């Protein structure tokens, strides 16, 4: 086990060295990734230019919510996001190369595809989070402090599992990889705004069916010390890690079934 861990550590180190080889180019990439995440923040500022309240949230509260969602997604995107290239690997036969090596296929793909320039997005998210925590008058208790750390991490695990589940779909639907975007990037968009914004069966499907409400919205209510206008019980507001565990199970099952079903393209 220690030996295997050593191999992965070496692979990650190699990735970092390779990607930072051209310093200036890497610095630009990093900076660029800081800038692009501002798009989400700008969108929220623009929306609050038009309306003072969105789904019962004022600007500082909405910023807090979107910052948590932004960091969680950025963490998942940094580590596992590139798994969405799987259909391309299947088409080009690269997956065969991965499968003949004596390491797990999924972990190899994840380690081999880290894009550390996306650290920039997390930096931006942390900046917005700090501003939002100050503006939103968060009352600090040990529980709230723990939530501020756990929520982005649990959210990241959930998004990562959804990325893997989505990529597993491409074992069945080679051309239809775009369907996964509806749940990965769609899930991100869903969590960027308060769940109160959505209504009807769509809310039930995304918030409760797929569990997205428990990833960012419920924990934000807990951090702000608010009750849910949708009337969910308070204990649910602490369920983010539970949702992450369930999604990991789904991802594991989808990946295992998919990879066993995989037949090489023969290229």
């Amino acid at each position: 086990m220690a030996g295997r861990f050593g191999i992965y550590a070496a692979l990650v180190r190699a990735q970092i060295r390779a990607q930072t080889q051209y310093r200036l180019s890497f610095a630009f990439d990093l900076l660029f990734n800081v800038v692009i995440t501002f798009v989400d923040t700008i969108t929220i500022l623009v929306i609050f230019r038009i309306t003072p309240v969105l789904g019962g949230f004022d600007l500082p509260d909405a910023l807090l919510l979107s910052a948590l969602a932004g960091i969680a997604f950025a963490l998942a995107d940094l580590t596992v996001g590139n798994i969405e290239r799987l259909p391309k690997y299947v088409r080009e036969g690269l997956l065969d190369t991965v499968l003949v090596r004596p390491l797990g296929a999924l972990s190899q793909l994840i380690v081999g595809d880290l894009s550390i320039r996306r650290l920039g997005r997390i930096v931006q998210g942390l900046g917005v989070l700090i501003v939002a925590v100050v503006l939103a008058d968060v009352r600090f208790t040990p529980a709230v402090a723990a939530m501020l750390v756990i929520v982005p991490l649990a959210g990241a695990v959930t998004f990562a599992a959804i990325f893997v589940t989505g990529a597993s779909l491409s074992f069945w639907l080679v051309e239809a990889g775009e369907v996964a975007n509806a749940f990965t990037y769609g899930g991100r968009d869903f969590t960027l705004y308060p769940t109160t914004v959505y209504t009807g069966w769509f809310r039930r499907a995304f918030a409760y069916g797929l569990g997205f409400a428990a990833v960012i919205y419920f924990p934000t209510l807990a951090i702000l010390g608010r009750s849910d206008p949708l009337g969910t019980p308070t204990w649910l507001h602490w369920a983010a890690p539970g949702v992450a565990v369930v999604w990991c199970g789904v991802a594991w099952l989808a990946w295992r079934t998919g990879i066993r079903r995989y037949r090489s393209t023969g290229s």
Partner: protein
Amino acid sequence: MPPRTFVALVGAGFRRWATYRQATIAGGFTNCVFGFLRCYVLLAVVGSSAHVVGYDRDQIVTYVWLGQGVLGVVTLWGWSDLNDRVKSGDITIDLLRPVNPIATYFATDLGRACHAALTRLIAPLVVGAIAFGLYVPRRPQTFALAVMSLALAVGVSFAVRYLVNLTAFWVLDARGFLIAWAILGNVATGLVVPVRFFPDIVQWVLWCTPFPYMFQAPIDIAIERVGPLEQWGLIGVQAVVLVALLWTCDRVQRRGVRTLVIQGG
């Protein structure tokens, strides 16, 4: 280029996309999911007020759903054909042909857009109409004007994409510029929120760029956010922007061909 060749290339573009049936359905599905996501957010912005920056409830709903369809037709991002050909060196083949690559790619892109107009445009409109109810234009001529504007928007979008891809002649891989354009395009074209949500000064700056003319303009025309005279005005500006962009593409390409170092072997 002889018209017959142009039409043949348009047909080829259409047929190429008609073969990707799974991908068309997947794309339409994803457009619809994002339609719901964006629609609810903008509806929350409208709230109980009758109007938001000149859009009423039905218009804002239609803005989102028509927008999700228009997105599939004009294709803001995800086109790197030219860049890939420069990277692989295949661009030599394009340059050796007796037709300008701009015309070749433009024709195939029009074929793609025609296919998308029959598939990707319709799907979100149907879903949006069933789930929320859409705004139906009051003036009959709006339908014709919207089609004209959409066609021009496809041209503008193509020219901008081509221009971004052309940077590959200098930097060999336009990936950075392509990503920058994808991010900028999200905000500057009116996709995420209508351009009219921005402060006046930002709106002014944006209308001076080609971006709103490939997305916001055809939608504003279709949902009659602007009066009859302004509809014609917008179409006129779109035409001017398109000609100017195609001319720029041609100039940049001429310069680029002189500096290009062919890749591959």
